[in-house]
């Protein structure tokens, strides 16, 4: 049985009775994983993460982190959790060191930790520069340093790449991979772009309109990708070919001079091909049209 770092059960939330935001969310985040929490804007990602951090008043369902209930163990859980919710939460009139030092007092971590996390995000040279003079990329990195200050076991990052340029996104991805591998930190990272976190995550949860549509490993999402792939037959006589395929008890559609079939096992493909050739239907090509993950994501989110 998997060991879950974070689990929600039947988590529901609404700002008003007739306007539900989350509906029966059952998140299962495995320990040591990088969990990509995906969904279009307004899907309910931020609301879920705010509930998980105790920033919104709990309404329905349960939240368990490190095997303990959030409501009863809020402070203990937060002492082992780091977070970045949407835009950077930094005191702009203070320096990077001052921002970290004031939190170091609360977390009671060693003073050396301030230097360590600044090194981790490559911000040791900022000196007396106030945060207001930082670029967005620097602010995001400092926010990661803030989230890492208490050496958390769980890191919750809501859209950490928002506003970053492609280089910044790559840097952030490498940094998170490094934190996960070197320090064994479980990371939940939300995004509205699958392509942005596809190369980072081990697990994926897809949410739309407040409902969790898919949850599993990245490999399972890839399996779904294969399942949703199409076989494309190019033949010399589509009408006859279509009849032969249907006679075999299979489904096919003709589109743009090609026959499209759902992906099937190799033996069935060979059988279809054999029957077509036997019935004098020339087969010019058999291809697999693979949906990319982005299309799977869009298909999932358009279903609701």
């Amino acid at each position, binding site marked *: 049985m998997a060991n879950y770092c974070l689990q929600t059960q039947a988590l529901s939330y609404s700002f008003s009775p007739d306007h539900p935001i989350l509906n029966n969310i059952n998140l299962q985040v495995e320990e040591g994983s990088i969990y990509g929490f995906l969904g279009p804007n307004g899907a309910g990602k931020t609301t879920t993460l705010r509930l998980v951090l105790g920033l919104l008043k709990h309404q329905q369902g349960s939240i368990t982190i490190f095997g303990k209930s959030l409501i009863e163990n809020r402070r203990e859980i937060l002492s082992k959790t780091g977070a970045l*919710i949407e835009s950077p939460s930094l005191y702009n*009139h203070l320096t990077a060191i*001052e921002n970290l030092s004031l939190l170091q007092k*609360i977390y009671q971590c060693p003073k050396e930790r301030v230097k360590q996390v600044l090194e981790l995000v490559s911000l040791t040279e900022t000196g007396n520069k106030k945060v207001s003079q930082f670029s967005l990329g620097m602010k995001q990195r400092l926010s990661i340093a803030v989230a890492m200050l208490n050496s958390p076991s769980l890191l919750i990052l809501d859209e950490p790449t928002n506003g970053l340029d492609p280089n910044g996104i790559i840097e952030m991805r490498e940094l998170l991979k490094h934190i996960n591998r070197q320090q064994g930190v479980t990371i939940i990272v939300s995004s509205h772009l699958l392509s942005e976190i596809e190369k980072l995550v081990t697990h994926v949860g897809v949410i739309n309109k407040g409902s969790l549509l898919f949850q599993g490993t990245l490999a399972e999402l890839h399996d779904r990708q294969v399942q949703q792939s199409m076989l494309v037959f190019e033949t010399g006589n589509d009408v006859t070919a279509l009849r032969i395929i249907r006679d075999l008890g299979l489904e096919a559609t003709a589109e743009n001079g090609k026959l499209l079939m759902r992906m099937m096992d190799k033996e069935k493909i060979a059988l279809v091909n054999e029957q077509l050739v036997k019935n004098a239907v020339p087969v010019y090509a058999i291809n697999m049209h693979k949906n990319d993950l982005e299309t799977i994501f869009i298909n999932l989110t358009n279903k609701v």
Partner: protein
Amino acid sequence: MNEFIRSLQSEWMKTRRTAASWLVVIGAFFIPLIMIVISAVKADKLPARYQSPVFWQNHFANSWQIMAFLLLPMGVILATSLITQIEYRNNTWKQLHATPQRFSVIFFAKLTVIILMMLQFFLLFNLGIYFSGIIPLLFSKAAQYPPQVFPVAFFLKTNLYFFIDCLPIIALQYLVSLQFKNFMVPLGTGIALLVAATFAIQWKYGYIVPYTYAALNYFQLRSSAVQPGPAVNIHLLAVGYFALFIITSFIFYINKKDKC
């Protein structure tokens, strides 16, 4: 207790280089500076003034005049609103509330910072009053150091009263500032109540408006014949209002659904 001290240290660090911290320093030395300039302009009248047996009481009362009526309440309104604005302006409430602290600790640590800033203001203002009494002696060779022994007890007692009298303003401003992201709401509320207080002061029951207490205390300090002051103990009322507003503020804060 340790959790509160750590939270307080953290909150105090946030005030570095803020408008509120500058306001405390500039506000404290503004009136003393004006007093020095007035003394320099009217240097010929200094010898007689300094020989008064109640020189320090007069000097103290003169220094407090504008302060009690306008600058102190206005400063409290601004400083309290600016301290809570630190979190709103930097979008840091969510970060603060995601730290392993009790919400009550955050609430009272922030309030304590405001009160400490007020104490800092009182300390600096009194230093300013003292030096604005001493420095003018440099302008007039005829003027002598006041023969009166410096009335420490009088200073402490009167300061304590002024401090207690501005507590309801701190509490009400804190309540409003915590509820509204828009800086103009607490500021507007404060100014409106201060204007209301200036009218209420001449009313028999003006003491109902808590923003009048610093001015009413000034009348008592001057033993004003024009404005004899209310029959009730305004300092006790101030403490009562303070407790009422803080309890209300705490209930609102704790029950806020969205702590972002």
